């Protein structure tokens, strides 16, 4: 007896069997949505990055090869903004990792009120960035803000200080607001990894006589590596692309003290209406993020 189906018919029956048809049907909605709202925009902005597209003269759109990229990469302002993004990112991510580790260590202990605290730390995570922005803008306010009031009452300053308006302080202060909102998620992610460390590992170490610090260094830290990596990459992605707080707190100012890359893209695209160079910058940002994200997807995708 040879096969009932032969050749093409068999191949088709196999390719479009019930499983494949179901999968196709189930994936169709998501794929069509993402095609419109993600894949197309991504490709389109790649496309515009090769044109000298300016909304100020919409009828002449010459194809300029890599000119936009060359222009962007040779622009000093661009590199300055890159450096600001880098310092904002490094500051934020380091602070987030350290704070999140301490919070996770705390919440990994069992004590009265632990549930309450783990609920409360969700508040910064849950609030809109706009609220986060105005919250810190008000705290940093040089005339009536809480920071000045508090420091004055504690006797740490003798008169009110200009905070956001001081170019040296702008980036760290914005980073502080960013960290405050990002820390809870990072802490939860690290806590979840911490909880997945098998208890008998600790018991074995205890039997071997390891003290608290040794247990932390030899068991906790190595086991946390995946969680740490995930948080680091994720938060780096978030910090690099962060826009909202720069818009809400300083609008890139004072002068260009908080003129970071995402702000630069915004200005170039929506104030100068120069879509070509804006897209080129976006793409450079995207490529950098991509390189970082490659790592995250390797890590997460592996498990799927």
């Amino acid at each position, binding site marked *: *007896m040879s*096969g*009932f*189906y032969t050749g093409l018919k068999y191949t088709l029956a*196999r390719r479009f*069997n*019930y*499983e494949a048809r179901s999968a196709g049907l189930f994936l169709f909605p998501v794929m069509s949505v993402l095609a419109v709202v993600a894949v197309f925009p991504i490709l389109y902005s790649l496309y515009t990055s090769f044109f000298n597209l300016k909304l100020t003269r919409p009828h002449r759109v010459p194809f300029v090869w890599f000119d936009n990229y060359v222009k962007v990469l040779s622009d000093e302002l661009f590199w300055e903004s890159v450096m600001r993004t880098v310092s904002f990112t490094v500051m934020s991510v380091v602070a987030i990792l350290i704070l999140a580790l301490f919070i996770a260590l705390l919440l990994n202990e069992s004590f009265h009120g632990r549930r309450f605290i783990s609920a409360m730390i969700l508040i910064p995570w849950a609030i809109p960035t706009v609220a986060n922005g105005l919250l810190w803008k008000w705290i940093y306010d040089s005339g009536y803000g809480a920071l000045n009031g508090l420091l004055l009452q504690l006797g740490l300053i003798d008169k009110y200080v200009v905070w956001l308006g001081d170019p040296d302080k702008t980036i760290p202060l914005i980073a502080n607001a960013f960290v405050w909102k990002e820390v809870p998620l990072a802490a939860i992610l690290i806590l979840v990894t911490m909880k997945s460390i098998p208890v008998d590992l600790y018991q074995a170490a205890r039997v071997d006589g390891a003290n608290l610090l040794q247990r932390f260094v030899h068991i906790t830290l190595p086991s946390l590596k995946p969680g740490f990596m995930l948080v680091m990459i994720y938060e780096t992605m978030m910090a690099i692309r962060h826009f909202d707080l720069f818009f809400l707190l300083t609008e890139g100012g004072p002068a260009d003290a908080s003129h970071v890359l995402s702000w630069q893209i915004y200005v170039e695209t929506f104030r100068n209406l120069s879509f070509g160079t804006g897209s080129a910058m976006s793409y450079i940002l995207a490529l950098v993020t991509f390189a970082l994200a490659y790592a995250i997807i390797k890590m997460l995708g592996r498990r799927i």
Partner: protein
Amino acid sequence: MARILFDNVTKYYASVKAVDNLNLEIKDKEFLVLLGPSGCGKTTTLNMIAGLEELSKGDIYFDQQIVNFMPPHIRDVAMVFQSYALYPHKNVFENIGFGLKMRKYDTAEIDRRVRDAAERLHIEHLLDRLPSQLSGGQRQRVALGRAMVRQPSVFLMDEPLSNLDAALRISMRAEIKQLHHSMQTTFVYVTHDQAEALTLADRIVVMKDGVVQQIGSPDEIYERPENLFVGSFLGNPPINLLVGELVSDNAGVIFQKGRFKMEFQEEISTKLQPHIGKSVTLGIRPEDVNEQGAAVPGLSVSGTVNTVLPMGSEQYVSMTIEGTEAFFRLGKEHKHKGGDNISLDINRNRLHVFDQETERSLLWG
């Protein structure tokens, strides 16, 4: 109600060949057992019958119909899974009745059948419980019930007893046999436990690395293994294997390993005639010996007892034959102890001889 035919079926997982060119006819109303070590492709075979795995090559027929691309919910099969796979959010009643509900039976009929099955499985009192509130044995019964109520044309079971404790396993064997009898439908049962296979099967299919080794009734498989693998996979304690040579002697063809010699019966001797000079493996099942007084070279084994394992109704003794440790099963008439010298008469019409090179039996197959 259903005959199942595998026609040159091969299944790959990526580059792993899980089932290799399977040709098998499962007869209507038969109790067929797929037996083999873990990873030999039993579950894959079962899944292909259910339609849960696609074939890479070949065809599967239900009766005269090719079902290669028929999805499982349209095939009339029921299956009991190794992990039971009960629906955690449904109670026992809903678990058992789910297959009927999906097939749009009316509520009264579902109720009748579920209660009927529950009664037969002695789980009537558990119908309102969730699976998490049941013991292993109870879950196993629910899984059986879920398949039973459907009265499918094929009943598939994937190691249904392997997660139970020993005592329960034995009693469930009898119940499954009973179930087959009353359901009058085709059963395909997967196990790696030879005892289960031997007690339950009408026919056994022995598999290894995705390849069928032998198909036959339990007696055939046990008494006439066609190759060394089948011979050594069945039997407890396992068959004793001695590697030696077939030589010609005035008594005909004999097996020789060092100073140990074994003569064959006339009929067997003739069969082995063409193989003189070959390197072979001689198989002696532990139970195929009788105790007797005198040692007769060529007809018996004799030596010093190494250890004795009392087994209650019988005893196992071990001795060394030309450097190979061998176990034999003896009655309790004589109490043996280590260091005793004994002679055992070999039941020579039950010997097995395998070609050392091809591992195929020289006697049958």
